[in-house]
């Protein structure tokens, strides 16, 4: 019986890492990011990473930690604000950046995971982000060709999992995680809670997409914009 649950991040990442690799990560802002596995990557010290992630974290959290440690050389993202070190490295020419509209990025992950080599979207047509890309007309409207993305490794944060690798995500911590999980040649999930059984109709990411899992030991879940209602509680 194949054992998918590993004792910790180091064990789960063992044998999967190499300099110059591509890693796709789940998360939106600081929500639903694989904090424990990012620590594992930090400890492993892998360099030359191309990171596919909607955001780049903040200076001292999320992918920002790998940026500060100079482990990432290239990012494919939709929005990289809120990170001074990112800005410094980018302006110094130390970091390569490919901007991708957010929906196109999510769809590129899904496409890569689903064996779709490319797809036509209206998003970005007529903008800088469509320059140099192939255009095509469908029913009189212009679409741009975007390609599927895969990665050597996917790291995701899940809420609940069974031992087989079926995953559920929690609320908006789902975001890019299910899409990233499909795009990794190997997918490692950190899980807040292992359970004996998930209802078959409730599974978000079927076990086929998950090769390794660990218990998430870092669940800081930092909040970027702590907005409170004005009404009395």
């Amino acid at each position, binding site marked *: 019986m194949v054992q998918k649950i590993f004792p910790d991040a180091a064990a789960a990442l063992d044998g999967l890492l190499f300099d110059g690799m591509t890693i796709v990560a789940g998360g*939106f*802002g*600081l*929500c*639903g990011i694989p904090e424990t596995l990012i620590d594992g990557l930090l400890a492993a010290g892998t360099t030359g990473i191309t990171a596919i992630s*909607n955001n780049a974290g903040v200076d001292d959290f999320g992918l920002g930690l790998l940026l500060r440690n100079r482990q990432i050389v290239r990012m494919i*993202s*939709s*929005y*990289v*604000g809120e990170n001074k070190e990112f*800005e410094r490295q*980018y*302006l110094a020419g130390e970091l390569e950046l490919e*901007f991708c*509209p*957010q*929906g*196109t*990025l*999510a*769809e590129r*992950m*899904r496409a890569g995971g689903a064996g779709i080599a490319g797809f036509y*979207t*209206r*998003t*970005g*047509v*007529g*903008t*800088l*982000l469509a320059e140099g890309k192939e255009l095509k007309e469908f029913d009189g409207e212009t679409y741009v060709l975007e390609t599927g993305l895969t990665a050597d490794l996917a790291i995701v944060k899940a809420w609940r999992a069974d031992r087989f690798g079926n995953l559920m*995500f*929690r*609320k*908006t*911590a*789902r*975001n*890019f*995680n*299910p*899409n990233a999980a499909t795009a990794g040649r190997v997918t490692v999930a950190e899980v807040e809670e292992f359970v004996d059984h998930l209802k078959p109709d409730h599974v*978000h990411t079927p076990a086929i997409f998950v090769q390794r899992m660990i218990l998430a030991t870092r669940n800081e*879940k*930092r*909040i*970027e*914009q*702590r*907005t*409170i*209602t*004005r*009404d009395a*509680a």
Partner: protein
Amino acid sequence: MTGWTREQMAARAARELKDGYYANLGIGIPTLVANYIPDGIEVTLHSENGMLGLGPFPTEQQIDADIINAGKQTITELPHTSYFSSADSFAMIRGGHIDASILGAMEVSQDGDLSNWMVPGKMVKGPGGAMDLVAGVKRIIVLMDHTDKAGNPKFRRENTLPYTGRNVVDMIITNLAVFERESRTARFRLIECAPGVSAEDIAARTEAAYLA
């Protein structure tokens, strides 16, 4: 000539939302629109990060780091909320299932081109979901100041900044006036001025050609 406040602009935009609408509100003034949705009108708010049915901001006790909107603000869920992946979220946007999006802008051209994501020479944060929204949502309503800080018109003949989308804006609500067009092949028309603002005031502060 003061024109409308931010809150009044948001309230004006809220009047564009109809019963049963699914709507996406951008960051900044557009977020305020949620506070002005008329009673008796059921509008379901969508957030790009994978949520349909956004509730108000939480109390201190309700805060949940796993419930945020696309502006990364903590929010709450409602009885009819659903969560889904980013790919599924943008399937709703790109597929034309969202009735209206209310967005901020740096510039809008008389042809409905929108620029709101980058200023050459400044650090670029990225488009986020803005290009997807303008490409997919049925009706795009822009909320912006009528002029920039230097007094230059933001509703222009042609945009000077890189595009977020071409020919995508249906309505413009500024602090001074409201412009609308019937279709993406029609011209914008000035349909409303803020109290105390005349059509001449608007003409003097607008570069775009529009129907009076």
